[in-house]
């Protein structure tokens, strides 16, 4: 055993740490240089988000050019992961702005004090985007409805496979093992769809059964539950772009996605798609995604500027192409190019569940869902 090696190990370790500590930022937002002296830092906005696909590096660069504020991204898996991150780092927030909490998670973020009121100047957001929540804690930046999509090639009346008129049809023999749904425990679209089923079955004609009975019936009918949207849509769904992928299985004719996913399919495939949405009343969930200022941030002003930037026409009107979601701006819509608009059906009646109800009941709903599935 040799002391020099130990010494070298320690020196290397300490050097790597000390080298970085000189770049540390103290609680006043000042950088400490090698001599321990505070020097002003560049203006940096830290955003925690899942991959918002519209936020390309060019868009971020544009914001920096306009405002002089540098943007750093903390990228997480999905909306649930953002809430988890905000809760885990509540005592010492790491980000200034959270992008991507939706109306299934927003109220929990409010109730647990991880976000604060914004100060952005907002006047161009359409009324429907304010429907789930219209306070000052969150600003909508995109939206869409989550519902079942199906492969039109799978419909065959002679084999008893008609277009479902009720969710109960999907628990019938004809669709055994043909429905893929992301788990509400691990996926945001899965959670939104589960919420929709609570409202759908609370308002159907049948008073002897409830929403958990349907999920149990779906388990008996070999429903495919996946951990995330990608796996359900890409790997299992027979009507989507997954058929061109190497990992495709294609054993499901129905999948939970956005009601406008067939439009996105068509847009990227020169107006070709075999997918369409099943927009049964109350079987869809109107999802709004929000920009929220992290509670306790020293950079709320930068966060507000970014929210305003996110709602400029230049950025937000491109949401349908760059982020595959609807814009929230007044009078905006989907582009007609390549059948995007034509193949995107709007549900006539989404599930009516408020963020407060969701926050209040989510734990018991998830427990009931688990019980129904086991």
């Amino acid at each position, binding site marked *: *055993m*040799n*002391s*020099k*090696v*130990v010494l070298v*190990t*320690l020196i*290397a*370790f300490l050097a*790597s740490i000390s080298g*970085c500590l000189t770049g*540390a*930022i103290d609680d006043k937002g000042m950088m400490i240089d090698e001599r321990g002296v505070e020097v002003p830092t560049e203006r940096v906005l830290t955003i925690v988000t899942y*991959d918002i*696909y519209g936020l*390309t590096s060019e868009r971020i660069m544009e914001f920096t050019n306009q405002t002089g504020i540098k943007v*750093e*991204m*903390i*990228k997480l*898996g999905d909306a649930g992961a953002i809430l*988890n*991150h905000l*809760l*885990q*780092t509540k*005592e*010492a927030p*790491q980000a200034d702005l959270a992008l991507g909490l939706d109306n299934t998670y927003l109220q929990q973020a409010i109730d*647990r004090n991880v976000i604060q009121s914004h100060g952005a100047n907002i006047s161009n957001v359409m009324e429907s985007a304010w429907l789930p929540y219209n306070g000052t804690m969150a600003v909508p930046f995109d939206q869409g409805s989550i519902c079942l999509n199906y492969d039109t090639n799978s419909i065959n009346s002679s084999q008893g496979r008609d277009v479902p008129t009720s969710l109960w049809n999907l628990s019938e023999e004809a669709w055994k093992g043909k429905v893929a749904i992301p*788990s509400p*425990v*691990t996926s945001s679209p899965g959670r939104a769809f589960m919420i929709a089923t609570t409202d759908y079955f609370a308002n159907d004609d049948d008073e002897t059964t409830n929403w958990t009975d349907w999920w149990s019936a779906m388990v008996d009918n070999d429903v*495919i539950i*996946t*951990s*995330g*949207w990608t*796996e359900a849509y890409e790997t299992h769904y027979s009507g989507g*772009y*997954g058929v*061109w992928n*190497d*990992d*495709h*299985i*294609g054993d499901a004719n129905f999948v939970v996605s956005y009601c406008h996913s067939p439009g996105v*399919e068509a847009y*990227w*495939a*020169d107006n*070709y798609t075999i997918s369409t949405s099943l927009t049964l009343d109350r079987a869809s969930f109107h999802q709004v995604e929000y920009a929220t200022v992290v509670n306790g941030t020293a950079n709320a002003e930068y966060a507000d500027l970014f929210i305003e930037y996110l709602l400029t026409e230049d950025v937000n009107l491109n949401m349908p192409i760059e982020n*595959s979601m609807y814009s929230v701006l007044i009078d905006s819509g989907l582009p007609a190019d390549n059948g995007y608009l034509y193949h995107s059906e709007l549900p006539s009646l989404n599930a009516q569940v408020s963020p407060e109800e969701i926050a209040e009941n989510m*734990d018991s709903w*998830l*427990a009931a*869902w*688990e019980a129904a599935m*086991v």
Partner: protein
Amino acid sequence: MKRKFENIEVALPFFLFSALVIIPLLLALDRLIYVSGKMPWQVFSSLDEHYLSQDAIGFTFLQALLSTALTLAIGIPIAWQLGRYHWPRIRLMRALLTLPFVTPAIVAAMGFMAILGSDGFDLRGERSTYLVSLLFAHAWFNIALVIRFVDPVISNLDPRMEEQLRLLPAGNSRWGRLRCFWIPLMFPSILCAAVLTFVFSFTSFAMVRWMTPSNATLETVMADVGGAAGIENYQIYSNELVLASSTIQFLVLILALWLLSALQAKRSRTIAEVSESHSRKKGRTGWLVLIPALLFCLSPLMAVIRSSLRVAERGPVISHRWTLEGWQSAISGDYAYISIIDALQNSLGYAILTLVISLPLGWSLSSGIHLLEKRGSYWAKPLDILTMLPLAISGVMLGLGILLGIIRISTVFFTMWWMPAIPHIMLSTPFVVRLLLPAMRRQDPELIENAQVLAMNRWQILTKIRMPLLRGPLIVAGIIAIAMSMGEFGASWILVRTGAWDTLPVLVDQLMTRPGFDPLVKPTAMAAASLLMLTTLILFLVAERFRPDGDGGMF
């Protein structure tokens, strides 16, 4: 006095390593117990009470045991051929056959999908094939272990031993030689490989997620709910599931690693060895084993490169066109926060940092264990197992531990660019130890004693005797550490990621999970995966050049 000094020398690296590995783990455990309000043994039943973790325990054991059996069945004949016969370009072949082990699992899974999918054997439509394909994928990943453990035993064997055996009654027949000689000779090495294969199959994540989507293992359960763990009054069940899964996993793996440590010590005390060139014979029918083996190892990787060069032509007929557009968009960073070139630079930066720390640390740990072994100390075995501990902790627990640990210590660390290197160091150090320790055990102690007689001081002994003699294993260990760091994904993914720090595996995952409506997304992801793979291959080929003849380490 000298002994006291030596004790400090042994204790210091172990203290450093423990601080790096055990403290985050204890912090995570403490947090999970606090938030769930239950002790680990009180939560085992929760696994069966939840839909996403039902049958996870049974499936984890089943697939790990079957994977181990299949890996041995495929790996032993390959190791036999490589070790026993003379082959042209054997270093290249070894490198190619070992490449799967350092291929990021997500890339490998994509390669297998391409082979099993509609463009390949078209087996994905039938669910009954999923488990078998997972077993083959695990075998693909782990045959390197069998080769690296078993091949040197055969290739370094003094041929006179076999010749002498032939003169004895038991050595008359082929079966007799196998039963009385080869099996007892290879058994400890085969068991070592089996134990490690079991460990890696037990904790496999990406392969399970993609190959058997309808089954959960303890690792996938932890990955599914781990993100919500550790938060008070929030999704309490996720704490229970992580606590239960990680406790079971930890107990099983610690047992396996104890077994491995015992076997490896036994293995390095076997019979006299010679340089491998002495023992090699001309092979005749061996190509029948080696060509399919090379095809098996390379085809998933070729499939990934192929996918990077094809873009789907969307329309009523499924078709693709050949193009470099995927590579172009990967290089320009069109679909991600950074380009593959930036990501490669980040990966290499973290890899070098990992090397600078884990190589000296691994050396110090190995030296310490070796010293204790020579003294016959009771502590040698527990400390040997301690160095393998990171292999027994799941990526999720590792990541969660660091996350929770850092939140408690100081959030300043979140802004430190080197933070993601910590799990890389934790995961690569055990490999460095596994490589250096057997080599140190093989070193002739008389050399050091002679040097002491010649009044060489400790520094001279280190630089003039020990390091030059261990030059081969040291270089291989260094390159393995770089390769492990380059491919590491699970643990760093759990940690907070700042976009500008994205490494290649993280970038691959981001691109893979991005909705692929735009046909260019997948080829872009595959281009990033191909670059990662090719970089790793080059590192491996370099490592092979420095490997000493018949190196008997882990790789």
